[in-house]
């Protein structure tokens, strides 16, 4: 049997499946590489999906989901950032939604949107770098670790076994949340995810490269990753091309507007908007990323063997130290994109879009969740903005989600919460790990122990919210 030199193939889950106990031998010396594991079989077909959207920069939770019933939310503390009740959307008589998130109400009223506040983790450093990494590595005790909790979920629960495309991210650089010894597909430029020459030339260099990367040996530390990345890339190109994402344009069934505005042509008209359009052109990359994530899910039917269960992207720009804006402005613009995007996901993944491709609905099996590294200071700063803080809010939407407002009602938000942390920040009530573990266990069907995904979870006694059911 050919030795898969240069491949770090020590998958604990794979060893379990193969029923072997080994001592001393490197797994790589006996088993074929990752691209051949596909043929070795996996567990029962599980079509539960998770789509994550990381809001980078630290989203100001207080203006996103306003604790209207908290007397501390006032113009004294937020002279220019304050959003009055008349400008925001009442959710439960206490919490109000930022007006730019109006598109979320469709999902909320269907009972499929969980609005969760006061989320974070203890003693965050308020550093973008470290706190983003902590949200993605699931281990506040080790903020420097570059291994993602979703990566651990995937390998410990054999999500990557027997399938071709278990996870896909669509963003500039590979996010820590899915990073580990094995790599997954990241598409930074959806319109050009292929080699630049056509066949037969393409096959000539592609096949030769694939051979070289497959047989790569050497003591250099990045060689296993180079092998893995190259093979995964080459083996995914044809599948991706078959999706023809550039020509997919699902539309809202009522208005006929494109659900994913990725160009001037697909940008809905709006006389009050920039250049007479609903969205600024800077929104196009975000919508394109969401579009490809949605398409990956829809294209992953049982016949395709893609097994795509994890997808994700990011939205940048939430670090509003300066000129944050209130009901309109910098943060509001980003929130409007997020809301439109989440609504579009709801429509298209429910099979309700105007779309000649008529994909099967997957909303009932999908959860979309947002993340952000921290919230922002409860008191406005001197630059009509806010600085780094602690707890923020997040959204979880999906067919299996128990919709509603969490941690933002008279019982869970007494006065004092807004300055409850260090006299400056919203006091965290729910650890982010509890939220994601609930989703993994109850929605995704994770069979592994919590501790292998979130180290130390079982000893933390974290309160869960019953978000799925």
């Amino acid at each position: 049997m050919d030795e898969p030199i240069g491949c770090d193939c020590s998958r604990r889950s794979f060893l379990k499946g193969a029923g072997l106990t080994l001592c001393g031998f490197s797994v790589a010396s006996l088993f074929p590489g990752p691209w051949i594991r596909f043929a070795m079989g996996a567990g029962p077909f599980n079509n539960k999906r998770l789509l994550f959207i990381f809001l980078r920069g630290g989203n100001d939770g207080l203006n996103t989901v306003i604790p209207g019933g908290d007397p501390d939310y006032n113009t004294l503390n937020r002279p220019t950032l304050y959003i009055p009740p008349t400008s925001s959307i009442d959710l439960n008589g206490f919490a109000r939604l930022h007006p730019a998130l109006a598109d979320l109400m469709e999902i909320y009223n269907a009972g499929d949107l969980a609005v969760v506040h006061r989320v974070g983790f203890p003693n965050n450093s308020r550093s973008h770098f470290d706190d983003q990494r902590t949200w993605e590595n699931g281990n506040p005790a080790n903020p420097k670790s570059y291994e993602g909790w979703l990566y651990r979920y995937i390998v410990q629960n054999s999500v990557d076994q027997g399938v071709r495309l278990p996870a896909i991210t669509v963003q500039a650089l590979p996010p820590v949340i899915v990073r580990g010894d094995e790599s997954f597909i990241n598409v930074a430029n959806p319109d050009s995810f292929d080699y630049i020459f056509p066949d037969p030339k393409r096959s000539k260099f592609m096949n030769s490269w694939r051979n070289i990367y497959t047989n790569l040996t050497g003591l250099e530390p990045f060689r296993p990753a180079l092998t893995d990345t190259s093979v995964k890339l080459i083996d995914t190109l044809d599948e991706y091309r078959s999706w023809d994402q550039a020509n997919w344009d699902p539309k809202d069934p009522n208005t006929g507007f494109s659900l994913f505005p990725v160009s001037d042509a697909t940008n809905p008209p709006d006389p009050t908007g920039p250049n007479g359009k609903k969205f600024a052109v800077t929104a196009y990359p975000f919508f394109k990323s969401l579009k490809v994530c949605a398409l990956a899910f829809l294209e992953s039917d049982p016949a395709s063997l893609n097994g795509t269960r994890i997808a994700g992207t990011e939205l940048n720009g939430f670090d509003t130290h300066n000129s944050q804006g209130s009901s309109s402005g910098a943060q509001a613009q980003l929130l409007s994109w997020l809301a439109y995007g989440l609504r579009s996901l709801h429509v298209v993944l429910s099979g309700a879009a105007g779309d000649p491709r008529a994909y099967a609905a997957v909303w009932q099996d999908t959860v979309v969740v947002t993340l952000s590294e921290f919230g922002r200071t409860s008191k406005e700063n001197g630059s009509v903005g806010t600085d780094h803080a602690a707890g923020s809010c997040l959204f979880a939407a999906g067919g299996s989600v128990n919709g509603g407002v969490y941690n933002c009602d008279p019982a869970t938000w007494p006065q004092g919460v807004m300055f409850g942390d260090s006299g400056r920040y919203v006091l965290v009530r729910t650890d982010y790990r509890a939220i994601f573990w609930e989703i993994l266990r109850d929605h995704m069907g994770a069979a592994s122990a919590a501790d292998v995904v979130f180290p130390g979870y079982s000893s933390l006694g974290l309160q869960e919210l019953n978000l799925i059911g």
Partner: protein
Amino acid sequence: MNRPRTASTQSVLRCLAFRLAPLVLAPGIGLAVAAPPGEVTGDRIDQASNLTWSPAAGADDYNVYRGDIAWLASRIGAECHGDEIAGTSFATPANPATGRGYFYLITAESTAAGEGTPGNDTNGTPRPLRGSCDSIMRHHYLDRLGYGWSEWTRDRIQTLGIQGYIDEQLDPATIDESTNTDLVTRRTTLVPPDTIQELQALDLVNAVYARRQLEQQVALFWDNHFNTDYPESADFFGFYNALFPDKQKYEGTKFHYDLQNSFRDLAFNGTFRQIVEASSLGPGMIVFLDTDSNVKSAPNENFARELMELHTMGVDGGYTQQDVVELARVFTGWNVCKKSDADAGDPLAACIPRNTYGTATEPPGQWVRNFRINQHDTGSKTLFAATPYQAIIPDTSSNPANGINDADLALDAIVAHPSTPRFIAKTLLQRFVDENPTQAMIDSVVAAWNNPANPRGTGDLREVLRAVLATGSFRSPDSVGHKIKTPFEHVASALRAVRGKTDGATVTRLYLTPLQEVFHVNPVPTGYSELGGDWLDTNNLLVRQNFGLDLGARTGTAFGNDVIGLLNANGISTAPSPNNAAAIVDFLSGAMFGAALTGAERQAAIDYLNTDDSGAASPYNDARIRETAGFLLGYPQFIEQ
């Protein structure tokens, strides 16, 4: 004839390095006097992992190669492990992973006649090596010190030797660029840059063509370390937009160009204290991190936090939230305004009135740092309270103009904090040497930082850099290929390796953008990562390979290669007949990555050159030679450095 000894099954299960009993040649028979030394014999390894061998006649030094025993079966070549060893012993304490083993090969080298044979294996063919130590190490230095191989640097190293080359690169003022027509002609249109695209183009042009390679690496290192974002500078000059849009772009770009030039100069002629001040109070940074809206009635912590977290001490450097608050107060009052040329150097001098900005009658002058006494918090500030590094900045209420000194005192305290040299040492080591520098490496660089003999004092940046480049790891073959080139480095080194032609702007737009590394427009204060794991993904691999293919296909002046010229100038025939594919591949792979190839990888490139698109054998032509160069640029070896 001795056969290579194979380890027993039992010993495979333990960490084990075993020795080859080499074929002993009869030296001297039929060999010319100037031939390289013969095969090295008598090599053995002891339990403490010391390799020793018998001296070879005519040898001035030896090279050690190492491989995984699993490679022997497939005749995959060993990799350079010890370069130019003076004696006949070499310590190699690194242990193979459980279940693996290493084998070692030693060659003898004479300065006059080159490297000798590694000997033949059992079927009489030469034992394979993945490139010779000399070419591997030369390539390693070129990749790390600059942007890779070019003919000029190859020749320069030939003249000066490696240490001489490093010393010269550490003194850029002594490197003459006036005769460097490739650089000079391109700079005429780009200097000074009128737009940020021109500055980005200049960055790439400098990287590809400058002889002062290390200077360019270091200038961009500090520029990225003290990251600023042009769109915010352009916004600052929004008042020029209606009447003078070109002026908005020029002045906005100038913030970043000026900062980069300060860094370029201070990196070799200054101290860290000077460079952090140039950054902190540079107009570009004042605008980027909101220092200009940081006022005593409402402080903004953005800059204060990033100054400590990202620029000096590091997130674990020991500062507290209280320090962030105090430091924000220190920097209150600073902003940017326009002053007359005569007043440009005086932060307290009057600004040109705002209502003249963006008008036809705006007086001449410069956009510089400005200190507004009435916006500055004059109260006393304490940094690092209750620690040995506590610094109390005195109250200046009785003479508020003295508040201008607060920033100086605070920067003094921060730079004096021991976390600063440690963090900067680590960052520089990650950049040039190793992603995970050891404490010993960090300590040696910190010692250089604090060396009382430094010509420029504490934190002498040239001496600190010299110490970074002198660490054992930097000089060790075991560091070769241990880092990944950043997208910028990948693109620049590819252009250099193929006598590339670039105007800077085209490649930045077409390739650095999808590769996600475009300078001066990164909105995240952290700047771009130095760690391979942050770059290496399916997208970056695909775009890098596409870049290589595109570069191989084009010959134009804005973006193209001159592979044929390169080969012919170096004595490699590109005529289709007689077939010269092997020599062509050897030269190109040598230029690109020191020919660190296995036999199979080398053959794959030769086959590529000798076949048409459908894989049928066919004589090559110039286009296919260029295409093969593009194919080689997609090899994993080219992505590593």
